[in-house]
C-alpha cells in the first residue's frame, strides 16, 4: 500500500497544535508557494492532476486558472466545509485531526487566486470542528501565516470562518454563496460559474476541504510526484468513508483506483456479523447504489462512472442482506424532501411525490404502476432539476429499482417486505425542524413598519454598484451620444431555422424573436433570470443533458432544438408536478383563458390527475386578507417566485419574501403582516406578473374572465409620466373592472403605480356629476344642457361686454386632453376676446417653462424617460420621483442597479435620499446658494467644460463673476450641510459621463422658482451636461397633461406651439387661421385672476377641471376673492370646492369616457381612448367647450377630437408631423415637424433652440416668510404616492382610501419629543393664514425644525396654511416654505378646559 498523505498525521493527536504541526513539516508548502508566483502555483497544482474531492471531480488547478484577475473586482476563495451528504464524514475528521494542514491549503489556494479575504463555510452542526478551526485560525494569525505581509512575502490574507445553520443545500457551491451573502441558500443557475461571478458578484474559487488538504503536499513534493500516484486520470489518494453494515466503519485513505473490495472487506473489516453485502454507495446517498457484483470496480471517477454510479465524495454506505432497499430508499428520500430548497419545480414537488409513493409501497399499499411513476418522475427530476440535489434525490430511487426491482414487486404484489425490515412505520415527511410561527395578521408594531419603510436597502442594489468614490465604468453608448452601440450579432440555428440574435441574448429571447415559443413560467424580461420553473429546457448539440434557455446565452453556430421528444416529455412531467401543487379550478378561475399554466398544460396534454394533488387548502388567511387591492390565493400558487422577484428587483419595495423551504415555501410579507402595513406600495406588479391567477385584483374577482373583458389601451390620467394602460371593461356591466399594462409598452414597460393600477373606481363613483346645474336663489337645481349652456354663455358674454375682456378669465385644465385645452384657449381668445387664460402650470411648473425657455429656448424636459437607465450620475434636486412620478422612479432604480451614482438634494429623507451616495439635506429655499457654490467649486477645480461653454453658450463671464464669491463654506453654513458633501456632489456631477439633472416642484414652488430653474440650466451648461443622450435638465411635469396644456397655448403669453402673443407675426397667423381679431393685451395667470377677483376687477370666471379653492395657496383668501365674482362657470366631473361657488355647473366626461391625446413629461403625445360611456347626461369637455363657444358667438363644430388635432398640427410646427393615424402605433415625441419624422428623444443636440445657451446671473434670495418666535418651524407641502393633486379623484377610490385615509404632518422625532407629540397624535398646525388639525407622523424624514404636509385632503385642507407669496416672474406660489407652528391637541384641549 502506498503511504497515506493527508491522513498521515492522524496517528499523532498533538499535530492539531501549530508547534507540532511545524515540526512535522507544516507550512513548508506555504513557504514554497510564496516563493513562487501565483501563476506558478497554479501550474504546479495543474501538473499534479488533483481533482476536486467534493463530488464533481473538476481539476483544481484549472478551476483556479479560470478566476480572472482583470475585472477590477476583488477575488475570493471559499472553502466548502458544509459537509452534509449522508455517508460523508472525512472533512470533519480532516479538520478535527489536522486543522493546520487544511488551513495551509486555504492560504496557498488564496495566494494562487490572489484573494485577500478567504471564507471557510462550515455547517452549523459542526460545533466542535468550528471551535477547533477558530483556534487554528487564531494560531495562524499569531505565527504570521495569516494577516498582513505573510512570512515577509508582502502577501496579505484574512480568513473568516462562517457558520451555516442547518441547510444541506448550502453544500452546493452557488447555494453556499447565496447563504454566505446572507440570503436563503437557493442555488443559482450556472453559467455564469462562480469562478467568474461568485461571491458578491466577484470572481471566486470554491474548493472542498479534502481537496485543499492535498495542496500543501503538492507544493512540498511537487505536482509530478502527486500525479504519479494512482490512475493517470484520477491521480492521488482519496479518503473513503465507510459506514453502515461493516465491522470497522471509518475513513480510509487509499490511492485512487483501489478496488472497492479492498476498502470494504479488508480495511473496513467486511460486512457485520458475516452477512452478505447487498448494496453500497460509492459516493454518499446522492450516488446510485451498486451491488456485490461491483465490488471489484476500481475506485476512481471513470471506473465508477462506467459501473453506473459516481465517485462523489467517496462515502460508502453499506447494506447487507437483512436490509430492505425500498425502506432504505424511502429513508433517503425523506432527507431530500426535507432539504429541497423549494426553488425549482422538479425538486420541490418531485422529491415529495416520490417519497409519498415510496411510503405507500413500504406500507404495502403500492400498485405496480407506482414503479413506472417512480421511474418517470425520477428521470424527470434528475434531468431537469436546477442543481445536484434534485439529481441526487433521483439516484437512489432509480438505482434501487434497477438492481432490486423484485423487492419493490414483493412489497406491491405480495404485500410483504422480503427483508422483514419494513415495520409498516410510514411517518409523514417531517416539517422543517424549527416550525414556523403561526400565521397571524396582528403583525409587527407600527414603528417596525416605519423603520422598514425607511430602510437603507443598499444590498438590493446588487453587486454591480461601485462603492462611493470608485471609478465608474465606461458607458455603453456611442461616442456621439446618439444611440446605443449594438453588440455584434450572432448566427445560430433553432429548430432548423437560421436565427440571428444580439450577442449576449438568451436562447429564449432569440427564439422568441424568431417566432419560436419556448414555454416558461418564471421568466420576465424585466427580471434577472433564475431558471426555477424548468419548463424552458432545450437541447443543444454537443451539450450533455438539457439546458434552460432563459439563462443560456447564444453563441455562434449553436444548434438548438426546442421541441424534441425528450424536451416535450420532460416538460410534460414538470407540468404535471406543477398541476399537483396547484388547485386546479379552471372553470371558476378569473384567469381562465389567460393562464400560462393552463395554456402549457393543454399544449403538452399534462394530466392533472396523474399525481396526487398537494395544493394548500383554499381560503387560508394570508398577507392579503382584508386588503382591498390584492388577493393572494396560496392554493393556486406554483412558487415561481415572480412576484417576490418583481417586488425586490423592479419595484425594490422588498415587501414580499419567501418563507420556509422545500414544498412548504410560501410567499409572505414577513409574519404575514397585512399588505398595507408592510413596505408594499400597492403597485400591483406582483398581480400583473403572476402567471396563474394566484394573485389577483380583488375588486375584479368574479367580474369577468379575460375573454369576457375588452381591453382598451389608453393613457393614465394621473401624473406626467403618461403610462400606457389597458382599461379592462366588462361590456356586460358597462364598467371598468381592472387595469393592466403590457410589458414592452413605452414609457412604462408594463409597470404601473398604485394610482394607475387601482385608483380607477372614481370613474364609476355615485358622486359623479351627471346633470347640468344652475344656481337659482342661492341653490343649485338641475337643468337641461341647452338651458345650462345658454345661461353660462350669457353670463360670460355679459361680463365681457360690461367690464371689457379683462373682466373675464378662463382656467383650462392640465387634466383634460390637448384638444380640449386647445379649444379652451381658442374660446378664451376668440369668444372671450382675452388672453386671460391659464392652467395649473402656474401652480407648479411655470418657472420651468419661463426659466428653461430663457436659458435654452425651450421649456420642456430635455431627455426621455427611456434614457434614464443609462445615466451614470443622477442629480436629483427637489424631486421625489418614487412618490410623485413612480415610473420615472423605477427607471432611476434601474439606473442604480446598473451602477449609477445618486446625488439627492432634498430637505426630506425620501426613498431616493435614503439610498443616495450623497444626500444634501439642505434647508428649504436655499437651493441657489447651494448651486452657486457647486458651480464656483467646479470652475475653481477646472472641472467645467470650457469648450462647450465657448461654443454653445453666452454671457459666461458675467455669470462667472456673479458667483466668484460664493464659497462652499458659505453655502454649507446657509444650507446647514457639510462642505465635503457639496464639493463631492459638484465633482461627481461635473465628471459624470453622463450626468443628468432631475427636478420638480421643490425647485419651482418658491418665490425664486424661475431663478432656481435658470441656475440649474447654468449648472448643466457649465459642465456640458446637456444636449446628449441621458444628459440634460429634466423637469418632471406634475399633472397628466400639463405639458400638453402648455403646448396648446392654454396660457396668457403664447398661442399653441409656444408662438408668443406679443409676436405680431404669430398673431397675424392665428387671426387668419381662426378667422377674427385676437386680443393684444397681455393676460394674467391663475394667481392674478384670484387677486383681481378680490380687487373687484375680474368679474366672471370659467373654470375647467380645476379646483383653485383647494389647490391655490392661502385658501381662505382664495375663497373670499372668488366670492367677489359676479359669475362663475365650473365644468368638472365632481362637485369641487370651487364648483360650490359656481352659478352654472357643467358635468363632464372623464378620461375613460372620451377620445383625445395627452402629452407626457417627455413631450410624448399619446392617445386617450374612450372605454366606457359617460354617466347620465355628461358630455366630453371638447363637446361642452364647443357648445359654449358657439353660444358665446364664436361657432365651433367638431365631430371628433381627431379634427381638432389636425387643426393643432396645422398651426404648431413642432407638432406638424403627428397625426392620430401615426399615434395608433404608439406615442410620438415633439418636435416632430413632418409626417416622416420619428420624433425627438432629446433636445439641444447640436444647438440650443434659442441658438446659444444663455447663462443667467442668479443670486441667493431667502424665502418670503421665515420662521420667527410665533411661528418657529418651516412648513413645506407636497404629494404622496397614493393620492393625486387635491384628491378629487383618488379620494373616491377604495384602495387609496384604505391605504391613506387621512391628512398628516411629518415632524422630526426630536421636535416631536420636545413638544410631547407621539406618532398618530392629533396636532394643530397653524400659520399666519389659518390652522388645520391632522395626525402627526413622527419620523426622521424631515429635518429638525421642519414640517411637511400633503395637500390631498379637503376636510383638513393644507392650503389653508400656505403662503400666497409668488415667484417674481411666473406668479407661482411658495408652497415649499412658510413659517408655521405645531402643537399637540390634547395639550390645547386641557389648557382650554382649564381656562
Amino acid at each position: 500500500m502506498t503511504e497515506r498523505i493527508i491522513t498521515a498525521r492522524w496517528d499523532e493527536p498533538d499535530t492539531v497544535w501549530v508547534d507540532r504541526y511545524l515540526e512535522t513539516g507544516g507550512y513548508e508548502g506555504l513557504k514554497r508557494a510564496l516563493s513562487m508566483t501565483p501563476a506558478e502555483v497554479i501550474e504546479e497544482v495543474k501538473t499534479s492532476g488533483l481533482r476536486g474531492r467534493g463530488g464533481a471531480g473538476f481539476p483544481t488547478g484549472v478551476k483556479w486558472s479560470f478566476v480572472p484577475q482583470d475585472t477590477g473586482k476583488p477575488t475570493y476563495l471559499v472553502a466548502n466545509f458544509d459537509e452534509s451528504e449522508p455517508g460523508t464524514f472525512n472533512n470533519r475528521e480532516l479538520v478535527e485531526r489536522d486543522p493546520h494542514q487544511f488551513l495551509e491549503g486555504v492560504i496557498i489556494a488564496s495566494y494562487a487566486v490572489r484573494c485577500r479575504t478567504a471564507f471557510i463555510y462550515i455547517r452549523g452542526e459542526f460545533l466542535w470542528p468550528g471551535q477547533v478551526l477558530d483556534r487554528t485560525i487564531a494560531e495562524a494569525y499569531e505565527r504570521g501565516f495569516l494577516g498582513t505581509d505573510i512570512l515577509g512575502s508582502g502577501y496579505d490574507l484574512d480568513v473568516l470562518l462562517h457558520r451555516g445553520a442547518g441547510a444541506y443545500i448550502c453544500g452546493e457551491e452557488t447555494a453556499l454563496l447565496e447563504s454566505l451573502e446572507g440570503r436563503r441558500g437557493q442555488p443559482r443557475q450556472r453559467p455564469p460559474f462562480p469562478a467568474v461571478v461568485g461571491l458578491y458578484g466577484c470572481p471566486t474559487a470554491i474548493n472542498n476541504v479534502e481537496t485543499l488538504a492535498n495542496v500543501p503536499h503538492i507544493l512540498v513534493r511537487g505536482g509530478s510526484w502527486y500525479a504519479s500516484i494512482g490512475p493517470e486520470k484520477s491521480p492521488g489518494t482519496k479518503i473513503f468513508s465507510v459506514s453502515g453494515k461493516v465491522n470497522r466503519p471509518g475513513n480510509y485513505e487509499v490511492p485512487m483506483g483501489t478496488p472497492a473490495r479492498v476498502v470494504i472487506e479488508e480495511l473496513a473489516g467486511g460486512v457485520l456479523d458475516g452477512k452478505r453485502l447487498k448494496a453500497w454507495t460509492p459516493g454518499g446517498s446522492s450516488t446510485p447504489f451498486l451491488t456485490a457484483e461491483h465490488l471489484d470496480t476500481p475506485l476512481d471517477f471513470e471506473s465508477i462512472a462506467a459501473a453506473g454510479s459516481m465517485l462523489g465524495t467517496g462515502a460508502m454506505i453499506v447494506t447487507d442482506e437483512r436490509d430492505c432497499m425500498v425502506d432504505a430508499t424511502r429513508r433517503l428520500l425523506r432527507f431530500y424532501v426535507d432539504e429541497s430548497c423549494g426553488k425549482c419545480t422538479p425538486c420541490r414537488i418531485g422529491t415529495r411525490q416520490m417519497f409519498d409513493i415510496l411510503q405507500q409501497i413500504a406500507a404495502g399499499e403500492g400498485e405496480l404502476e407506482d414503479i413506472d411513476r417512480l421511474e418517470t418522475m425520477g428521470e424527470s427530476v434528475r434531468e431537469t432539476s436546477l442543481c445536484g440535489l434534485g439529481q441526487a434525490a433521483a439516484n437512489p430511487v432509480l438505482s434501487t429499482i434497477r438492481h432490486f426491482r423484485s423487492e419493490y414487486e414483493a412489497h406491491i404484489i405480495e404485500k410483504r417486505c422480503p427483508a422483514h425490515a419494513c415495520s409498516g412505520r410510514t411517518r409523514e415527511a417531517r416539517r422543517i425542524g424549527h416550525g414556523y410561527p403561526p400565521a397571524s395578521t396582528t403583525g409587527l408594531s407600527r414603528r417596525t413598519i416605519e423603520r422598514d419603510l425607511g430602510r437603507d436597502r443598499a444590498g438590493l442594489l446588487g453587486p454591480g454598484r461601485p462603492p462611493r468614490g470608485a471609478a465608474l465604468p465606461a458607458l455603453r453608448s456611442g461616442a456621439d451620444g446618439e444611440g446605443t452601440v449594438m453588440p455584434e450579432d450572432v448566427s445560430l440555428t433553432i429548430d432548423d431555422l437560421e436565427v440571428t440574435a444580439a450577442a449576449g441574448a438568451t436562447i429564449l429571447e432569440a427564439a422568441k424573436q424568431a417566432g419560436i415559443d419556448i414555454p416558461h413560467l418564471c421568466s420576465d424580461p424585466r427580471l434577472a433570470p433564475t431558471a426555477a420553473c424548468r419548463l424552458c429546457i432545450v437541447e443543444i448539440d454537443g451539450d450533455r443533458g438539457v439546458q434552460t434557455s432563459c439563462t443560456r446565452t447564444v453563441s455562434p453556430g449553436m444548434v438548438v432544438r426546442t421541441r424534441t421528444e425528450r424536451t416535450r416529455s420532460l416538460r410534460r412531467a414538470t407540468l404535471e408536478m406543477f398541476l399537483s401543487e396547484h388547485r386546479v379550478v379552471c372553470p371558476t378561475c378569473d384567469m381562465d383563458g389567460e393562464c400560462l399554466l393552463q395554456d402549457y398544460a393543454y399544449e403538452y396534454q399534462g394530466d392533472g390527475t396523474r399525481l396526487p394533488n398537494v395544493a394548500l387548502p383554499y381560503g387560508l388567511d394570508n398577507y392579503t386578507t382584508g386588503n382591498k387591492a390584492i388577493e393572494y390565493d396560496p392554493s393556486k400558487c406554483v412558487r415561481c417566485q415572480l412576484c417576490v422577484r418583481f417586488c425586490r428587483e423592479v419595484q425594490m419595495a422588498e415587501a414580499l419574501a419567501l418563507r420556509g423551504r422545500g414544498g412548504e415555501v410560501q410567499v409572505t410579507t414577513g409574519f404575514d403582516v397585512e399588505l398595507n402595513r408592510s413596505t408594499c406600495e400597492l403597485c400591483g406588479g406582483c398581480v400583473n406578473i403572476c402567471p396563474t391567477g394566484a394573485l389577483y385584483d380583488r375588486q375584479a374577482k368574479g367580474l369577468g374572465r379575460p375573454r369576457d373583458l375588452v381591453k382598451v389601451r389608453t393613457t393614465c390620467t394621473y401624473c406626467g409620466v403618461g403610462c400606457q394602460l389597458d382599461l379592462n371593461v366588462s361590456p356586460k356591466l358597462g364598467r371598468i373592472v381592472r387595469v393592466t399594462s403590457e410589458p414592452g409598452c413605452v414609457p412604462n414597460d408594463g409597470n404601473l403605480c398604485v394610482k394607475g393600477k387601482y385608483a380607477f373606481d372614481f370613474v364609476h363613483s355615485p358622486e359623479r356629476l351627471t346633470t347640468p346645474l344652475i344656481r337659482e336663489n342661492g341653490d343649485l337645481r338641475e337643468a337641461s344642457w341647452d338651458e345650462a349652456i345658454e345661461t353660462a354663455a350669457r353670463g360670460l358674454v355679459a361680463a365681457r361686454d360690461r367690464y371689457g375682456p379683462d373682466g373675464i378669465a378662463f382656467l383650462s385644465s392640465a387634466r383634460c386632453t390637448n384638444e380640449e385645452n386647445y379649444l379652451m384657449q381658442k374660446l378664451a381668445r376668440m369668444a372671450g376676446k382675452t388672453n386671460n387664460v391659464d392652467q395649473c402650470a402656474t401652480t407648479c411648473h411655470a418657472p420651468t417653462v419661463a426659466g428653461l425657455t430663457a436659458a435654452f429656448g425651450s421649456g420642456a424636459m430635455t431627455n426621455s424617460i427611456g434614457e434614464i437607465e443609462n445615466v451614470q450620475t443622477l442629480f436629483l434636486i427637489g424631486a421625489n420621483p418614487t412618490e410623485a412620478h413612480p415610473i420615472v422612479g423605477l427607471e432611476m432604480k434601474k439606473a442604480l442597479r446598473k451602477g449609477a451614482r445618486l446625488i439627492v438634494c432634498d430637505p426630506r429623507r425620501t426613498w431616493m435620499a435614503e439610498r443616495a451616495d450623497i444626500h444634501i439635506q439642505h434647508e428649504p429655499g436655499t437651493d441657489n446658494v447651494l448651486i452657486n457654490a457647486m458651480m464656483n467649486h467646479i470652475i475653481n477645480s477646472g472641472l467645467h467644460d470650457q469648450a462647450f461653454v465657448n461654443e454653445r453658450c453666452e454671457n459666461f463671464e458675467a455669470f462667472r463673476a456673479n458667483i466668484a464669491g460664493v464659497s462652499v463654506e458659505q453655502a454649507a453654513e446657509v444650507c446647514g450641510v457639510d462642505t465635503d458633501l457639496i464639493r463631492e456632489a459638484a465633482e461627481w456631477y461635473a465628471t459624470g459621463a453622463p450626468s443628468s439633472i432631475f427636478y420638480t416642484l421643490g425647485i419651482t414652488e418658491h418665490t425664486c422658482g424661475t431663478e432656481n430653474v435658470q441656475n440649474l440650466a447654468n449648472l448643466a451648461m457649465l459642465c456640458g451636461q446637456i444636449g446628449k443622450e441621458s444628459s440634460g435638465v429634466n423637469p418632471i411635469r406634475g399633472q397628466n397633461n400639463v405639458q400638453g396644456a402648455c403646448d396648446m397655448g392654454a396660457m396668457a403669453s403664447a398661442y399653441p406651439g409656444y408662438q408668443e402673443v406679443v409676436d405680431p407675426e404669430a398673431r397675424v397667423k392665428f387671426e387668419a387661421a381662426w378667422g377674427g381679431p385676437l386680443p393684444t393685451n397681455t393676460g394674467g395667470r391663475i394667481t392674478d385672476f384670484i387677486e383681481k377677483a378680490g380687487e373687484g376687477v375680474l368679474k366672471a370666471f370659467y373654470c375647467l377641471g380645476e379646483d383653485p379653492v383647494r389647490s391655490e395657496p392661502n385658501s381662505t383668501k382664495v375663497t373670499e376673492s372668488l366670492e367677489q365674482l359676479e359669475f362663475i362657470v365650473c365644468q368638472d366631473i365632481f362637485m369641487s370646492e370651487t364648483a360650490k361657488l359656481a352659478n352654472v355647473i357643467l358635468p363632464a366626461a372623464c378620461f375613460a369616457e372620451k377620445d383625445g391625446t395627452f402629452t407626457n413629461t417627455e413631450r410624448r403625445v399619446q392617445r386617450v381612448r374612450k372605454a366606457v360611456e359617460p354617466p347620465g347626461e355628461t358630455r366630453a369637455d371638447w363637446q361642452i367647450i364647443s357648445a359654449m363657444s358657439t353660444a358665446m358667438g364664436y361657432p365651433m363644430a367638431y365631430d371628433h377630437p381627431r379634427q381638432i388635432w389636425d387643426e393643432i398640427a396645422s398651426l404648431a410646427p413642432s407638432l406638424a408631423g403627428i397625426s392620430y393615424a401615426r399615434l395608433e402605433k404608439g406615442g410620438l415625441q415633439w418636435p416632430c415637424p413632418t409626417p416622416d419624422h420619428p420624433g425627438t428623444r432629446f433636445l439641444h443636440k447640436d444647438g440650443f433652440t434659442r441658438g446659444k445657451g444663455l447663462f443667467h446671473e442668479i443670486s441667493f434670495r431667502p424665502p418670503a416668510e421665515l420662521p420667527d418666535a410665533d411661528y418657529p418651524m418651516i412648513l413645506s407641502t407636497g404629494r404622496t404616492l397614493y393620492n393625486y393633486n387635491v384628491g378629487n379623484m383618488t379620494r373616491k377610490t377604495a384602495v387609496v382610501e384604505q391605504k391613506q385615509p387621512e391628512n398628516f404632518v411629518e415632524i422630526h422625532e426630536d421636535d416631536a419629543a420636545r413638544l410631547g407629540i407621539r406618532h398618530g397624535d392629533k396636532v394643530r398646525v397653524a400659520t399666519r393664514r389659518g390652522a388645520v388639525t391632522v395626525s402627526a407622523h413622527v419620523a426622521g424624514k424631515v429635518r429638525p425644525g421642519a414640517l411637511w404636509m400633503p395637500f390631498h385632503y379637503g376636510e383638513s385642507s393644507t392650503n389653508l396654511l400656505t403662503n400666497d407669496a409668488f415667484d417674481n416672474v411666473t406668479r407661482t406660489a411658495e408652497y415649499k416654505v412658510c413659517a408655521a407652528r405645531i402643537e399637540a391637541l390634547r395639550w390645547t384641549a386641557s389648557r382650554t378646559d382649564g381656562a
Partner: protein
Amino acid sequence: MPVLAPELVEVAERIVARYPKGRERSAILPLLYLAQSAEGHVSREGLREVAELLGVTTAEVEAVATFYTMIRLRPTGRHVVSVCTNLACALRGAEEVYARAREALGPGCEEVTEDGMFTLREEECLGACDAAPLVQVNSASYDRVTPDRVVEMIDAIRRGDPPRPSRGAFPGDFRQVSRILAGPEATEPAEPAEAAEAAGSAGAGSAGAGQ
C-alpha cells in the same frame, strides 16, 4: 426590553465588522444565532432587531431565518437532543434510539418538554456516520449511542451532570451554544488549560484511519 441588550448590540457590531464593507448582510446568520442565545429561540422581536442592525426589512430576515433549521423560531427546550436517523445511523439502530429518547422525554418533547428542559429532534445526517448512531446534545456529538445510553444521557443532563461529548468539552445549554455559533466575537476567550484539554480530545472517537 430589547432582545439584544446593549452588550449584545456591541457584539453584533463586532460581528458585522468582520465582513467586507457593504456586505454587512452576510452577518445575518451569526446575528440570528446571537439573538437565539439571548432568548433560547428567535422571536419576532429578535428578527426585527436583527433586521434593524443590518438595514434590511424584517420580511427579508424572516425569509432567511425560516430557511435554516438551526434557527429556532418557536420556544425551545434548554437542551436540544438531536438523534440522527438518516440511513447510515438507521442501519445501526438509530430509530430505536430515537424512540427510546422520545419515550424518556415524554409527551410534547418534539416541541418542548413540560419542564422546559428538552426539545427532541429527529435529525438528518450529522457528519459522523462512522460513529452511528450519532446523537447530539446542543450540537455536541455523542458517538455510537445505544437506546439505553440515550436514556442515561438524558437522566444525567436532568441531574445537571451532562456527559462528556465524544469530542471536546460539554459546551453548555442551547443558548450558550448559540452564542458560540455566533462566532468568536461573541464568546469569552477560553482559558489556555481548558482549551488544551478540549483540544486534546480531538483524536478520540473515530475509528482511526488507514491500515
